[in-house]
């Protein structure tokens, strides 16, 4: 097994387990404080990575154009703030497994936008994938109605 697969598995485990810690944290800490703490730790990790030489150093930030900043700022607002806000908040009302599974259907949204906005076309196995994902989401939603 090569290093990239090991790292990918490590990433999946870390992403998977963080939800458990988040739910335990939110028994004692307000939602906004949890978001702030995770953002601060992420910021430290990202700055550390650039500092140790991944990429081309901090000077790159000076040469990034305004439109590119804008795109990433919007992405950050949607992903790190709104997305995380809804995701973490959902832990207060439903099980962590359900929340994580439902929120992990986001590639479907990306695909829908890719088709409608970017004009991309789907291939056969992607249709099956969307069908399976929607079926899974429906099962989890139905559980909520019981």
């Amino acid at each position, binding site marked *: 097994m090569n290093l990239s*697969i090991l790292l*990918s598995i490590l990433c999946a485990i870390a992403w998977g387990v963080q939800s458990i810690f988040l739910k335990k944290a939110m028994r004692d800490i307000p939602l906004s404080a949890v978001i702030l703490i995770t953002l601060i730790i992420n910021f430290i990790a990202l700055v550390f990575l650039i500092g140790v030489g991944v990429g081309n150093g901090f000077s790159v930030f000076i040469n990034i154009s305004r439109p*590119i900043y804008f795109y990433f700022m919007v992405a950050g607002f949607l*992903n790190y*703030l709104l*997305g995380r806000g809804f995701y973490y908040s959902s832990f207060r009302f439903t099980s962590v497994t359900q929340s994580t599974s*439902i929120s992990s259907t986001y590639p479907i949204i990306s695909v829908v936008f890719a088709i409608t906005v970017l004009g991309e076309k789907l291939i056969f196995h992607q249709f*099956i994938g969307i069908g399976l994902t929607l079926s899974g989401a429906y099962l989890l939603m139905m559980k*909520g109605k019981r």
Partner: protein
Amino acid sequence: MSRLRGQMEAALSSVCFGIAPIFAKKGLMSGLHPLYGATIANTTALIIMIFFALFSGRVIRWEPIKKYGLFFAILAGICNSVALVSFYWAMSIGKIALVVPITCTYPLFTMLAAYLSMRESEVMDIFTVAGTLLIVIGVVLTI
């Protein structure tokens, strides 16, 4: 009703997580290293949250925070950062077609960890297991 609210919030988070990469992709089309994009995105969110903390007293109340909760919030942040670092590292040395589908299996690890550590509060029935499996397989096929 509250469970449905949780599911709706999870679905809304999925919409946000789904739209964000459209903008990130537009940014990355400039040839910028994804790490810088992630740093700009994270810093934007962090600055907004700090403004909230400073100027809206009712948003964050630090007094009732217990060490137990703080400990788990820091653990979650570390896990998130480990995931971030390992994701970028894997992407830089491996094939995207392999790395992305593997990382999308994370709900399975959440389910396993919830089963092992939160049996008292997490209901693990056939709907949860089947739904999670279908979503993971579906997402891997869609990517």
